[in-house]
């Protein structure tokens, strides 16, 4: 595959290195002269100096035959415009943008960027999974379809301990899909399953009902 990468910072450099190792044809476009030289010395002639949003630069690197276009500069607006130019001027079939402000995810989708990667969100997700006190962990968000898979740990004082699943008043659109207990096989609950303290619950919910679900399960 021919892949064009915009931005030769740390992300761009290691990305190029990894993709080269996988046998792809790579070209990095970097604005800074000394950074360009560094990549050139490290990886060979796979980096040119230029502005990845400029039509002339992209023509020069043959963006028209690129299979994929990845914009990983530190600025969301630059990444957006680079991807849009690649898509609309050079018909690159797949464009990927790195974003720093998680709020831009929806905007970029709406403006036709195929994939966005938010480093902020990725780090946040890890923190949520690693920090046990965090009340509700997002495991999976089915993008733009309004469905989330979350994990909740039942605290020792939750009012729902000892209750059956059917007795819980879960918010609309929410369902408990799995209960994980220490030293037991994870089980798909029935209406009669009784909630115990320290249960790990995997639930399907919606972004709107998330807060209400947490209140029901944790009693906060």
């Amino acid at each position: 595959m021919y892949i064009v990468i915009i931005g030769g910072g740390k992300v761009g450099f290691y990305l190029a290195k990894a993709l080269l190792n996988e046998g792809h044809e790579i070209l990095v476009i970097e604005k800074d002269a000394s950074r360009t030289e560094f990549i050139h010395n490290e990886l060979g002639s796979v980096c040119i100096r230029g502005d990845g949003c400029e039509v002339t630069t992209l023509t020069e690197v043959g963006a028209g035959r690129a299979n994929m276009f990845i914009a990983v500069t530190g600025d969301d607006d630059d990444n957006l415009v680079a991807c849009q130019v690649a898509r609309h001027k050079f018909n690159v079939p797949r464009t990927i943008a790195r974003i720093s402000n998680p709020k831009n995810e929806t905007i970029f989708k709406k403006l036709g960027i195929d994939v966005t990667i938010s480093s902020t969100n990725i780090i946040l997700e890890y923190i949520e999974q690693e920090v046990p006190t965090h009340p509700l962990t997002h495991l999976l968000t089915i993008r733009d379809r309004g469905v989330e898979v979350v994990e909740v740990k039942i605290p020792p004082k939750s009012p729902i301990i000892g209750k059956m699943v059917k007795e819980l008043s879960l918010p609309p659109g929410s369902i408990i899909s799995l209960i994980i207990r220490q030293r037991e096989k994870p089980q798909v609950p029935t209406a009669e399953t009784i909630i115990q303290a320290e249960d790990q619950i995997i639930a399907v919910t919606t972004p709107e009902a998330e807060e209400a679900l947490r209140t029901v399960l944790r009693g906060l």
Partner: protein
Amino acid sequence: MKVVIMGCGRVGARLAGLLDIEGHSITILDTDTYSFRRLPAEFAGTALVGDGMDEEALKKAGIEKADAFVAVTQGDNRNIMAAQIAKHLFNVPRVLCRIYDPLRRELFNSLGIEALSPTTTFAQMLKDKIER
């Protein structure tokens, strides 16, 4: 008319002043308060610190009720991104932006963004003056 302007540079501040005198309701955004010194002393509109690429800042500036949005920061890409947010997310009826790069301007014009390139316009004006 309610107009939101992003970027209080020379052009942004001057435009804000001109529209303000005509009685339009103006909100001007800039990330740096120091830029607001460029506004005329009698400016009656609102000057807000904020990033025009940020939805929240745009809402505070009243973008939801704006009749027009103008992006005139120094960065082409910032202007392009803000203009697209105003047009596609907030459905502002009239969106204008400045794009210095003529080729980029051409492309985004074809994508429905009403963009002006001072580079092209000014070079043409100079040429006309010289040849006259």
